[in-house]
């Protein structure tokens, strides 16, 4: 059994976790080109060596960051996402998109 040291729950069986992929800072969707967005969505460094990834503990719905070696299958360090992300990321939609979104939500009776 492989053990994942969870920053919230301590050492747990790795089968309780889901790997969320490489930690990548997304480009601003309102300003980036389609190619930049495709690059962010699909392309991967897929490194053989030490990687920094998002991991998720399913039972407690807790996202955190793990550094592990993909060649030796060793987990080097895990820590809360707050170590890397100190500020909330706010995605501002472009003007026309936000208006369309608001009118759609209004028509269907949903909350904007």
């Amino acid at each position, binding site marked *: 059994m492989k053990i994942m040291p969870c920053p919230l729950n301590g050492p747990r069986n790795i089968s309780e976790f889901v790997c969320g992929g490489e930690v990548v800072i997304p480009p601003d969707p309102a300003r980036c080109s389609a190619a930049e967005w*495709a690059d962010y969505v*699909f392309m991967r*460094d*897929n490194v053989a060596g030490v*990687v920094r990834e998002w991991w998720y503990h399913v039972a407690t719905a807790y996202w955190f960051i793990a550094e592990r070696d993909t060649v030796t299958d060793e987990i080097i360090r895990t820590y809360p996402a707050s170590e890397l992300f100190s500020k909330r990321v706010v995605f501002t939609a472009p003007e026309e998109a936000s208006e369309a979104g608001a009118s759609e939500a209004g028509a269907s009776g949903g909350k904007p």
Partner: protein
Amino acid sequence: MPFALLKYGLKREYPAERHFPPQPELKSTYDVVIIGGGGHGLAAAYYLAKDYGITDVAVLDKGYLGGGNTARNTAIIRANYLTPEGVRFYAESIALFKELSQELDFNVLYSERGHLTLAHTDAAVRTSRWRAEVNKHLGVDSELIFPDQIRKLVPSLNLSEDVRYPILGALYHPPGAIARHDAVAWGYAAAAARRGVELHQKVEVTGVLRANGRALGVETTRGTVHCGRILQAVSGSSSLVAAMAGFRLPIHTVPLQACVSQPLKPFLDPIVVSGSLHTYISQSARGELVMGGETDPYGVYADRSTLEFKEGLIAHMLELFPFLAEIKVLRQWAGMVDMTPDFSPVMGKTPVENYYIDAGWGTWGFKATPVSGKRMAETIATGRVPELIERFRLGRFYEFKQIGERGAASVGH
């Protein structure tokens, strides 16, 4: 051993032929360099020489021929895919596979068995019918069958309704087959070598020489090799080699594990797959049961085997074939697979001119060996990507035109 056979074997008139001719020293220039001496690379070398007369070709492998995923797959061949792109592509592969032993003058032990994809839910039955109709429309033999017909094909299968996932039906694909995977690589290698292609083992590519967006050659552990065109065919390490050429791929590398049981007398003719139970099983010519399941849950570049995989696989296998509880696992292994977001390969041109790619072979690479070799050879020789593989271009991700081949692996994703 009969004495006459021994005498025949020792006679000078019938000297043992070398399988591969002795290889010359690595030259500093070739027309085409193929990175990766697995089935795909060797097949491309063979068709370059045979169809286009391009014989100044070097196949470079950091290990030995056919030692990567060509030796690690479970040797299943089928064309019952879901998307028209996938069905057409694999139908051509089956046609080439059927004639391959003749073509290469080398027995690849092609054995047509029939292929059953079991459906345990109403949703799976619907998908089976969908796949069968797409297949039939494109001339591929597939049909939806029900337990009474399944029982005739696989009498040993547990069709009881008193199980967690009763079998409701199956997608039956009569052309489904298995072949000796090593023989496919060795046959292509020998036939290519006879036409003048050079096979260089234990030559690792460490860099790609480029200038003004063009590939000029490769750096290797045995020196620099200049060439006109390069083909990268290194599934499992595709991202690492592509990084040397300066571009990224939509690929995530994960291990795929498999195992075989001790040999049994022949009892299982078709290949049996269950998507819901994440298992597949076939009986090899040696009588061993070849079994596999899902890819590992997270990415690793290590071909280790795990107990978790075996536990999950065998627990489900015993629901299908309860009597296998008495049987021992004989060997286990893993291969590194290139998983793409749409379960389809990445083939054709790259952002680097003269640098061609054959990657993203996930869990669907062995069955594509002849067709990918033939069509990549066509791409390299003519400079034009044939229509059959054009949709598998790397650029599809930048156009948000993924293929969505959910019939790709026989098991769920």
